[in-house]
């Protein structure tokens, strides 16, 4: 096995039930003590809701600045990870809860002031960290349910390998919330007496909260202590069921095998496997079978720490990456806390008490809803190797789909040609045939939009196989599902809600449905980075294809929800609008067609002038037109922004696309679809702008500035 470049862990930070920092986590692992109790983060009502959780101490008092619980937990752990070291130049955060706990309380109280909801968006967690550490590079949010943080670490590794960052803060954070507590309860997945992974009498998980972050560096300074190395990561999707794991653990096998291949490490060299091990009957059975398939009958030492920390959901992969680093540093095999009698059917022998041993290589598993699997591999530090970054490749556009207020791509182009706006809500007829009726029976608007885009793009590419890489962007996720779940919950006094809506409420649920429909077992990433969600899906697909993926399906969409969208999203408060676009992207070759290349992301003060000077330096005169997206919070500055862009590209037409394509967070995907048509015909369908050299710059001027180019 050969394996790609490693990254070096130079900082760790963690918070979970029973540990406010890494020092306390070390003590907790050395003498494990379960601290499950009824939640105080929110009130529970009724006998059915008396279930223990794994709650972090010290965050029950409301924050004076209105920061939600997830943000505060994330910031504390991130500060510990960065410590006194050099500041990161990029951030990748995995989260599913974001500001939901704050939103739940405000919705129940009927609060109509949008300012109360300003931290709802998942992107605001990473943005808070970016501000704290003055990060000017990519600030990325991954939301793939309970694998989020592990997937975030995988994305960070790819950024370092490509030379797009040198020092990345990566991990995840989630807080307790009524949505997750009652959601898992309604799924009958919560153990009444605390989770007991691998136990014969295991009866489910314990919902927890926390955060775990690593600082990962490609080439740390000589005086920086390296704690461990990140050797490789593997991602996969079961494409089997919305929540239940594949019974044989087929997706888990793929994730572990891909991670081992990525790291260039033989299974026999693995000293310890940190299990996903949630304590649900199905997860533990599937994971045990998967282990035997990957490692044979001679399994490495293994344990799940969730009987100690609870299941910290999106944070789990980050927290357990920190635990893996501690295992390597201290030569400590963590115990499978909570185990009373091993389930003989599993045929595994977990570490029953903290044990000192030689730990050289650790595999850490994180699996989530949507059949979303991630495995990461850490080892003891090795020599710092020189990284030779290669620029991101241009990708050939094999097919394009889009959905706007006018319908699909053709209807959109007709409207634009007539100088009319294509904004508004996507008409039902445009996505009614997203998939067979039985398949979409339970699905609401966002997964249906996403399936329609996926189907059209996939069919249009002529591909006969399932996509080899799937990257999805959605800033707001399935809001209708969240709204319905909370409405039913509140109306029943926190007793009842819909399991279907809970399953559907995770931001990666649409991507999971797309994988199911197309049978895609590939890496399956969902980015919820605000207005940059589509750009991050393109970035991720570029990294995936650079690493050898045969093709990539890239989708980005938003679905307007009449109650929540105007409260949460300043863009949606302007007028109801949704839609998005989808592409099948291939490695560049001699085939004719449009190309997309991810160019840059710059954040912080002066993001726009910085990106403009970077772009202008790199043969800025090559563009025929600049298509600019200005998110609603920056609308007041729009004429200044457009002037500034025009100055940087003298003589080049500068077009603001949101007026023509609509106001929603994924409209940059639509703008890219339109540009991909324009470079083929020689006319950009925005104000019929001629493209003699067939090259368009797509710029987004929000809190971060991003740039893509589309050319033929």
């Amino acid at each position, binding site marked *: 096995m050969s394996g790609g470049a490693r990254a070096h862990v130079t900082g760790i930070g963690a918070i979970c039930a029973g540990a406010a920092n890494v020092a306390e986590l070390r003590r907790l692992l050395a003498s494990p003590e379960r601290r499950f109790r009824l939640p105080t983060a929110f009130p529970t009502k009724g006998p059915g809701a008396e279930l223990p959780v794994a709650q972090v101490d010290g965050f029950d008092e409301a924050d004076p600045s209105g920061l939600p619980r997830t943000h505060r937990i994330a910031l504390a752990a991130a500060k510990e990870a960065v410590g006194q070291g050099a500041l990161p130049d990029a951030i990748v955060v995995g989260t599913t809860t974001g500001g939901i706990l704050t939103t739940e309380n405000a919705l129940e109280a009927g609060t109509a002031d949008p300012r109360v909801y300003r931290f709802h968006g998942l992107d605001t967690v990473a943005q808070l960290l970016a501000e704290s550490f003055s990060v000017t590079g990519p600030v990325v949010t991954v939301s793939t349910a309970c694998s989020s943080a592990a997937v975030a670490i995988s994305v960070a590794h790819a950024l370092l390998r490509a030379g797009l960052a040198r020092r990345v803060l990566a991990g995840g954070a989630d807080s307790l919330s009524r949505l997750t507590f009652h959601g898992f309860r*309604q*799924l*009958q997945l919560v153990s009444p007496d605390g989770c007991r992974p691998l136990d014969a009498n295991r009866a489910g998980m314990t919902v927890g909260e926390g955060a775990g972050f690593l600082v990962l560096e490609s080439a740390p300074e000589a005086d920086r202590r390296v704690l461990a190395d990140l050797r490789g990561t593997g991602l996969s999707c079961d494409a089997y*069921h*919305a*929540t*239940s794991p594949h019974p044989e653990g087929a997706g888990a096998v793929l994730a572990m095998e891909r991670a081992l291949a990525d790291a260039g490490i033989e299974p026999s060299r693995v000293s310890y496997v940190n299990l996903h091990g949630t304590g649900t009957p199905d997860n533990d059975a599937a994971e045990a079978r998967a282990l035997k398939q990957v490692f044979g009958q001679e399994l490495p030492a293994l344990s799940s720490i969730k009987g100690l920390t609870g299941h910290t959901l999106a944070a789990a992969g980050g927290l357990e990456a920190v635990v893996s680093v501690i295992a390597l540093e201290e030569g400590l095999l963590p115990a499978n806390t909570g185990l009373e009698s091993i389930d003989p059917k599993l045929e595994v022998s977990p570490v029953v008490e903290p044990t000192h041993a030689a730990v050289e290589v650790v595999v850490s598993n994180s699996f989530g809803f949507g059949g979303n699997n991630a495995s990461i591999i850490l080892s003891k530090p090795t020599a710092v190797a020189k990284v030779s970054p290669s620029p991101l490749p241009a990708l050939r556009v094999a097919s394009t789909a889009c959905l706007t207020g006018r319908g699909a791509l053709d209807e959109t182009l007709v409207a634009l040609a007539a100088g009319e706006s294509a904004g508004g809500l996507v008409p039902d007829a445009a996505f009614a045939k997203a998939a067979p*009726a*039985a398949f979409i*029976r*339970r699905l609401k608007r966002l997964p249906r939009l996403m399936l329609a885009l996926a189907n059209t793009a996939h069919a249009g590419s002529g591909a006969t196989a399932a996509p080899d890489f799937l990257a999805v962007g959605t800033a707001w996720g399935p809001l209708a599902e969240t709204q319905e779940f909370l409405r039913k919950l509140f109306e*029943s006094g926190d*007793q*009842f*809600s*819909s*399991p*279907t809506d809970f*399953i559907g409420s995770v931001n990666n649920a649409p991507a999971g449905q797309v994988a199911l429909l197309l049978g895609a077992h590939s890496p399956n990433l969902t980015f919820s980075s605000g207005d940059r969600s589509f750009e991050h899906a393109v970035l991720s697909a570029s990294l995936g294809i650079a690493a050898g993926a045969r093709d990539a399906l890239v989708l980005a969409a938003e679905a307007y929800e009449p109650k929540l969208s105007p409260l949460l999203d300043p863009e949606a408060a302007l007028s109801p609008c949704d839609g998005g676009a989808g592409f099948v992207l291939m490695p560049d070759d001699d085939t004719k067609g449009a190309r997309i290349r991810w160019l840059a992301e710059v954040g912080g003060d002066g993001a726009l002038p910085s990106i403009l000077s970077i772009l202008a330096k790199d043969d800025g005169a090559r563009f025929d037109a600049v298509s600019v997206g200005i998110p609603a919070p920056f609308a007041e500055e729009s004429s200044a922004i457009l002037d500034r862009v025009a100055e940087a590209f003298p003589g080049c037409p500068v077009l603001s696309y949101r007026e023509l394509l609509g106001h929603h967070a994924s409209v940059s995907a639509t703008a890219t679809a339109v540009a991909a048509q324009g470079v083929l015909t020689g006319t950009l369908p925005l104000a019929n702008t001629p493209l003699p050299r067939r090259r368009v710059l797509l710029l987004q001027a929000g809190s971060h500035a991003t740039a893509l180019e589309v050319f033929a």
Partner: protein
Amino acid sequence: MTEAKDALTAELARKLVETLGLDMAPESVDPAAPLIGAGLGIDSIDTLELVVMIERDYGVKIDNRAAGVEAFASLDALANYIRQRRKTA
């Protein structure tokens, strides 16, 4: 196919179709046929949805696999399961 024997079975058929968004008339649900699996296309998520509906509307819990097997054997079986455990007749 047997006729719905009583009001509860008919009511459950209506709620089944409504709760799960099934594309069929409540009268066409065979009260003797297995609820879960190929016939109606009802899967584990639908089953949980029905569990919540039954607890909410009838105050009857179905909280383990054995109970689920008994309750969801058919629409008639579900009606019997509820009748035997219902607090208020």
